[in-house]
């Protein structure tokens, strides 16, 4: 990467390089970006699956030897998260559905962990990947729209499923026809409700993606401060500045990633709660 930084267009190239997924399948041979539908973002899939397996493994370890009397420190932590999530579900979800709470817990844990990849120094994972001959590595799966959209589409499918299950097919159709303006403005109603429903998964996916993408970009810009400084006096000035800025953004971003995971979880609960109510 030092070669890129020393060249004139190094900054742009540095950022672009960092924001390019490791692509396999139908990819552009020059820009390395996806060039067709069958393009696999291997880094996204690898990291998210690794984190998912971590959750499964840790969950299995904790769930296997639960101690109701004297919980260990780690069990306490997991218990705290579980109780926090189930408290959110209790507060915002009307009725009873045993799927909602584990779904919310999964979203919170997975999204938080994937967001947490943003906390790892931006050049570290690509550097390690480079040792193995992998030259493109975008470590944060939630900066890939495929991940966020995959989750929000799954939620969207659940919304449709439970809407039809609770309201009935006719009731669901009626919601499109007569909501929100009554029976005299049916065409408007259809457009409005369609937009409203489609906005749910799109806003979920784009909010998370946007926040994390922007956060990653800021980390890249901060990383450039020290990198672009010439060797010498400027370096002595720029490197501490970079460190301080990085720390500040790190602390702030820790809040952001938690908040984004929380928002995704709560909105999922709210949307599914709306699907479970009959009063449309």
């Amino acid at each position, binding site marked *: 990467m030092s070669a890129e930084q020393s060249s004139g267009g190094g900054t742009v190239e540095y950022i672009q390089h960092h924001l390019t997924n490791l692509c396999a*399948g*139908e990819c552009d041979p020059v820009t390395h*970006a*996806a060039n*067709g*539908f*069958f*393009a*696999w*973002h291997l880094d*996204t*899939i690898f990291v*998210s*699956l690794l984190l*998912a397996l971590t*959750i*499964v493994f840790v*969950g*299995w370890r*904790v*769930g*296997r030897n*639960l101690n*109701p009397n004297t919980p260990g420190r780690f069990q306490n932590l*997991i*218990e705290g998260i*579980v*109780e926090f999530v*189930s408290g959110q579900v209790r507060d915002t979800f009307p009725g009873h559905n045993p*799927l909602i*709470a*584990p*779904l919310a*817990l*999964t979203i919170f*844990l*997975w999204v938080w962990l994937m967001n947490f990849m943003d906390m790892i120094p931006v050049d570290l994972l690509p550097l390690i990947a480079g040792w193995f001959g992998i030259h493109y590595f975008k470590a944060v*799966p939630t900066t*890939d*729209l*495929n*991940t966020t*959209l*995959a*989750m929000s*589409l*799954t939620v969207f499918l659940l919304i449709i499923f439970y809407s039809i299950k609770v309201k009935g097919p006719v009731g669901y159709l009626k919601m499109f026809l007569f909501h929100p303006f009554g029976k005299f403005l049916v065409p408007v109603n259809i457009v409005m409700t369609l937009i409203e429903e489609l906005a749910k998964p799109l806003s979920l996916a784009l909010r998370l993606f946007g926040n994390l993408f922007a956060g990653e970009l800021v980390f890249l810009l901060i990383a450039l401060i020290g990198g672009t400084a010439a060797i010498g006096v400027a370096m002595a000035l720029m490197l501490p500045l970079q460190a301080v800025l990085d720390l500040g953004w790190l602390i702030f971003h820790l809040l952001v990633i938690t908040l984004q995971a929380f928002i995704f979880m709560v909105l999922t609960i709210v949307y599914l709660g709306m699907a479970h109510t009959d009063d449309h």
Partner: protein
Amino acid sequence: MNITVTLFAQMAAFIMLIIFVNKLLWGPMNAMLAERQKRISDGLAAAEKGKHELELSEKRAKEALVEAKNRASEIIAQAEKRASEIIDGAKTEARAEGGRLVAAAKAEIDQEVNRAKEQLRKQVAGIAAAGAGKILGREIDANKHDDLLKDLVAQI
């Protein structure tokens, strides 16, 4: 940033993760939390019950104590009454016994006095007879004058 087949891979991963989290983490932990909640509420109920029972038994103990005190004072009163009765009885008995003793002593004294008187009378009669004999210069035949002597004795 293109939407690719990665989307479906991620969806599959997400759905599987939900299933695994539900099965491995959420299920056991929820059951454990429910069990713990039940145990805590049971414990609290048992504590409440124990407290109630303690109160009840304390009340019962107090009642028993009061009753015992009452009984004790009753018994003491009875005993005192009985003691005074016994003392009274003993007193009257003693008085009666004393009276009896006095009466017996008096009777004995009377008897002794009578006996002494009798003796004295006899001796006086003897003396009188002897004196009379001396005066008359002859022996009074005791047998002859028995009637006379007796009469004399009776007169003394």
